[in-house]
C-alpha cells in the first residue's frame, strides 16, 4: 500500500541528514597537523570545530627549566619557516629585562635577517596555497626563490632552518664579507620569480575564482579575534608593529604597509605579494646604510695565532691586543673577535665573550664561566616584559617573567597564527567544503608556534 516505495523520490520526501567529516589531522590537502571537524549539508559547511595540539611539545614548560640562553634553540622551532624573527623577539624581551641596548650594526643585521625571513615565510605560504589550488609550477618557482634566500641565511648563520643566530645582547656572528652583493643578486632573482608568479596567478581565472570572496572576515570581527599581520591588513586596517611601535631600527626605513579592502583570500594573497616587495625595499635600504663595525687593525699587520698571543702577553707586550686578529685551531673557531665587538653589546652580564678571549685570556674565561656554569648565567632582575615584534603572520609576542634567577620564571609566546586559527570557524561556516583549502592556506598555520 505504500505508494512512495516505487515512486520517484523528490527533494521533500528524501530524508537528509548532516554529515560529519574529519578533515585532518593528516590530510593530503592540508599542510600541518590539525583536525577540522565539519558538519556538512551537501557541500555546504554548517558548522566546524578546530582541534589543535598535535604538535604540542611543552616549549613553555621546558623554557622554565633551562637557562636563558638555552631557550634560544627552542625558539627556532616555534616558527620553522622564519626562525630568525623568533630568535630576535625572544632576545629583545631579555635585553629589555636586563635594560641593555645592542649595537647599531647588530640592529641592522637583525632587521635585514628578519626581512629575509619574512620573504621566505610569505613565499612558502603563497607557494603552498597556490599548489593546493593546482598551481604546482608556482610552488616550485617560489621554493626555488626561497632556496636562494635560505642560501643567504645559511651563509650568515651556518644553518638553514635551526639557525639559533640570535643572542641576548647581539647575534652569533657578523655578516659574511660579500653578503651585500650576494643579497642584491638574490633579491634581483627573487623579484623575477615574483613577477613570473604574479603573471601566473594574479589574473588567472581558476586561481581568482577560488580565492575571491572566499574566507571573508570583516575588519571588526578580525580585531575582536585579535588577528594581526597580513591577515588583518587584508581586511583594511594598516596595523604593523614595525610602523606602529618600531623596534630595532625600523623607524629609519621607508616602506609601505599594504592593505586590502575585502578581507578575502585573494586580498591576503595580494597583501603578501606586496609585503615581499616592501621587505626587499627594507633590506636594500639597510644594506646601503648599515654602519661598519670598528676597524680592526693587526698589531703588526699580521695575523697572530693564539699561542703566540699568549706568549707575547707573558712578556707584557699587550698593547694593541684588543685590536689584534687571532686565528685559532679550526675546532675552536667561533666568531672572530673583531666581528664579535661589532655585533654584540658591551655587556659582560649577558654577552658571551668571543671564543678567542675564552681560550686566550683569563678575563674571557671568567666571563664565559660566569655565563655558562650552572648557578651563574644571565640574571635579569625580577620583572616582566612583553616584547612585540612583527612576525610574518602577525604580532609575535614574548612575555617573559624573571625572578632574578638564571632560568626564565615564565616564558609565554603569543603565536600570531593562534588567533587566526581561533577564528577559522567564522571563515569556514556557510561556505563550500572546497573553500577550506584556500582559506586554510591563507591562514598560514605553523604548527610549531600554534601548539608550542
Amino acid at each position, binding site marked *: 500500500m505504500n505508494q512512495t516505495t516505487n515512486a520517484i523520490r523528490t527533494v521533500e520526501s528524501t530524508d537528509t541528514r548532516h554529515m560529519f567529516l574529519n578533515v585532518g589531522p593528516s590530510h593530503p590537502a592540508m599542510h600541518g597537523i590539525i583536525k577540522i571537524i565539519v558538519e556538512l549539508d551537501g557541500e555546504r559547511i554548517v558548522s566546524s570545530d578546530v582541534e589543535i595540539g598535535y604538535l604540542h611539545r611543552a616549549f613553555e614548560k621546558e623554557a622554565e627549566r633551562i637557562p636563558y640562553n638555552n631557550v634560544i634553540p627552542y625558539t627556532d622551532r616555534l616558527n620553522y619557516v622564519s626562525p630568525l624573527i623568533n630568535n630576535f623577539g625572544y632576545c629583545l624581551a631579555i635585553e629589555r629585562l636586563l635594560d641593555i641596548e645592542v649595537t647599531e650594526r647588530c640592529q641592522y643585521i637583525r632587521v635585514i635577517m628578519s626581512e629575509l625571513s619574512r620573504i621566505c615565510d610569505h613565499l612558502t605560504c603563497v607557494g603552498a596555497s597556490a599548489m593546493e589550488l593546482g598551481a604546482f609550477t608556482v610552488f616550485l618557482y617560489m621554493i626555488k626563490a626561497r632556496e636562494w634566500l635560505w642560501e643567504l641565511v645559511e651563509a650568515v648563520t651556518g644553518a638553514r632552518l635551526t639557525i639559533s643566530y640570535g643572542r641576548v645582547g647581539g647575534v652569533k656572528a657578523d655578516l659574511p664579507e660579500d653578503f651585500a652583493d650576494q643579497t642584491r643578486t638574490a633579491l634581483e632573482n627573487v623579484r623575477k620569480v615574483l613577477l613570473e608568479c604574479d603573471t601566473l596567478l594574479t589574473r588567472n581565472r581558476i586561481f581568482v575564482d577560488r580565492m575571491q570572496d572566499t574566507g571573508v572576515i570583516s575588519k571588526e570581527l578580525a580585531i575582536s579575534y585579535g588577528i594581526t599581520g597580513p591577515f588583518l591588513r587584508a581586511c583594511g586596517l594598516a596595523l604593523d608593529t614595525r610602523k606602529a*611601535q618600531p623596534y630595532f631600527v625600523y623607524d629609519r626605513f621607508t616602506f609601505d604597509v599594504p592593505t586590502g579592502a575585502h578581507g578575502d583570500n585573494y586580498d591576503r594573497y595580494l597583501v603578501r605579494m606586496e609585503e615581499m616587495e616592501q621587505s626587499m625595499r627594507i633590506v636594500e635600504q639597510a644594506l646601503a646604510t648599515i654602519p661598519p663595525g670598528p676597524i680592526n687593525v693587526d698589531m703588526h699587520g699580521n695575523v697572530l695565532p693564539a699561542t703566540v698571543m699568549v706568549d707575547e702577553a707573558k712578556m707584557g707586550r699587550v698593547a694593541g691586543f684588543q685590536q689584534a686578529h687571532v686565528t685559532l685551531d679550526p675546532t675552536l673557531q667561533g666568531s672572530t673577535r673583531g666581528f664579535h665587538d661589532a655585533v654584540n653589546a658591551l655587556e659582560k652580564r649577558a654577552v658571551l665573550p668571543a671564543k678567542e678571549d675564552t681560550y686566550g685570556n683569563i678575563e674571557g674565561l671568567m666571563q664565559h664561566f660566569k655565563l655558562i656554569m650552572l648557578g651563574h648565567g644571565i640574571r635579569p632582575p625580577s620583572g616582566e616584559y612583553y616584547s612585540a615584534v612583527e612576525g610574518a603572520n602577525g604580532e609575535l609576542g614574548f*612575555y617573559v617573567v624573571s625572578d632574578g634567577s*638564571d632560568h626564565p620564571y615564565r616564558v609565554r609566546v603569543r603565536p600570531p597564527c593562534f588567533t587566526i586559527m581561533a577564528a577559522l570557524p567564522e571563515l569556514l561556516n556557510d561556505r563550500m567544503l572546497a573553500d577550506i583549502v584556500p582559506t586554510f592556506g591563507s591562514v598560514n598555520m605553523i604548527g610549531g608556534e600554534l601548539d608550542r
Partner: protein
Amino acid sequence: MPTTLTPLVQTRFPQQVVGTHHFRGQDTVIITREALSDVARFLRDDPALAFDFLMDLTCVDYQTFGRTPSSAPTLATPSPLPYYMNPKPVTEQWERLVDREAFRFDVVYHLYSSRLNHRLRVKVPLSVADLTMDSVTSVWHAANWFEREVWDMFGIHFAGHPNLKRLLMYDQFVGHPLRKDYPAHKRQPIIGPLN
C-alpha cells in the same frame, strides 16, 4: 615616565585597582577578580583607552617565585666592587604587589589599542582556594581560545565561557602541566584510539 593610562583606570575604579606599576616602559594595572568584567568593558569602550585588541591572555604561577634553586645569589656576601668601579644605578624596581601565599596565580591580559597605539597589561591575582573568574569572551572574541589554553595549562575556571575544554592537551590528560608543582618529567599513560 609613567603614562596617563593607569591613572585613568584608577580614578574610574578606585576600589577595584589593587596596584599599578610601570616597568621598562610598560604599564600594568592589577585589579581584583570581581571587577574584571566591568574593567574589561571600560577598557574597550572608553574613548581615551579604546583597547580593541586583546593581544594575549596568559597566566603565571607564582608558587616558587624567588625560590628557583639557582635564584639565590652565588655568594652569601657579594664581594665589594673595586674602588674604580661604580655600581650600575638601579633605576626601576619591580614588585608583584600582592602576597604570594594569598594569591598564587596571576592571570595576565595584554591589551593594545590600534586607534591610539598604546598597550596596557592587566593582571588579576587569584587565590588557589577559588580559581574561578569571569570570562571576557563577550568583550573580545580572542579570549575564547586563550582562556581554553589557560584552563588547560593552569586549571583556572572561566565562568561564562561558551566551550571551556582542553585546547592543547587531550581530554584524558590529568592535571595542569604549566603549574609549578606539575613535574616536568611526569609520564601519563598513552591513550589509544578512541573509537
